[in-house]
């Protein structure tokens, strides 16, 4: 059973639009929820992260919304740019081990 479920699998957004990627989890022991961004040929790189005692975290155009009761969290990319085109992974950490979602391939059209 997959512990972190991510959707959608792929997403196409026009430049300037809002990109939204959602994740849901089951394990209530998760205590740290990062998002990673991966460009082709590169490894995933930490983009932004949140702890479960906070409902929202914003860094520039990137915002994480966290709903502890629903066990869901999402990444919002405002004013999406072609340079944001990449694969995005949500993750959740428990006891030093991170569990990842399947990834979302984002394409931002100029």
């Amino acid at each position, binding site marked *: 059973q*997959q512990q*972190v479920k*991510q959707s959608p699998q792929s997403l196409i957004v026009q430049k300037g639009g809002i990109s939204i990627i959602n994740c849901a989890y089951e394990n209530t022991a998760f205590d*740290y929820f*990062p998002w*990673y961004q991966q460009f082709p*040929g*590169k*490894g*995933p*790189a*930490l983009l932004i*992260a949140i702890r479960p005692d906070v409902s929202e975290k914003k860094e520039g155009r990137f915002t994480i919304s966290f709903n502890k009761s629903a066990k869901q969290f999402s990444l919002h990319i405002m004013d999406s740019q072609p340079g944001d085109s990449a694969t995005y*992974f949500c*993750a959740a*950490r428990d006891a*030093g*081990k*991170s*569990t*990842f*979602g*399947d*990834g979302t391939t984002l394409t931002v059209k100029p």
Partner: protein
Amino acid sequence: EAGVTQFPSHSVIEKGQTVTLRCDPISGHDNLYWYRRVMGKEIKFLLHFVKESKQDESGMPNNRFLAERTGGTYSTLKVQPAELEDSGVYFCASSPAGLPTGKLFFGSGTQLSVL
């Protein structure tokens, strides 16, 4: 500062052969992780070293996989004998000691194809 280095970047082998992947973590990072992504699915945990000790190897698929981290520096992951289902991208990640944030620094991965 050099990042996490993995090699080879690509490996194509035949079923039954042996392959060894190498990972050089960021200097000074005690924590070293191996992950694998198969066919566009999730990045799946394989194991975790703290220095030279295996902290958690619950994700290792079977005894055909052997990971080592001699001296607590670089790590190798050997697959012997390789099977078709072992194909995928193998990622190594590292993090400093005492950093409970869960932030991982990933290498670029090794694309393994077993034919």
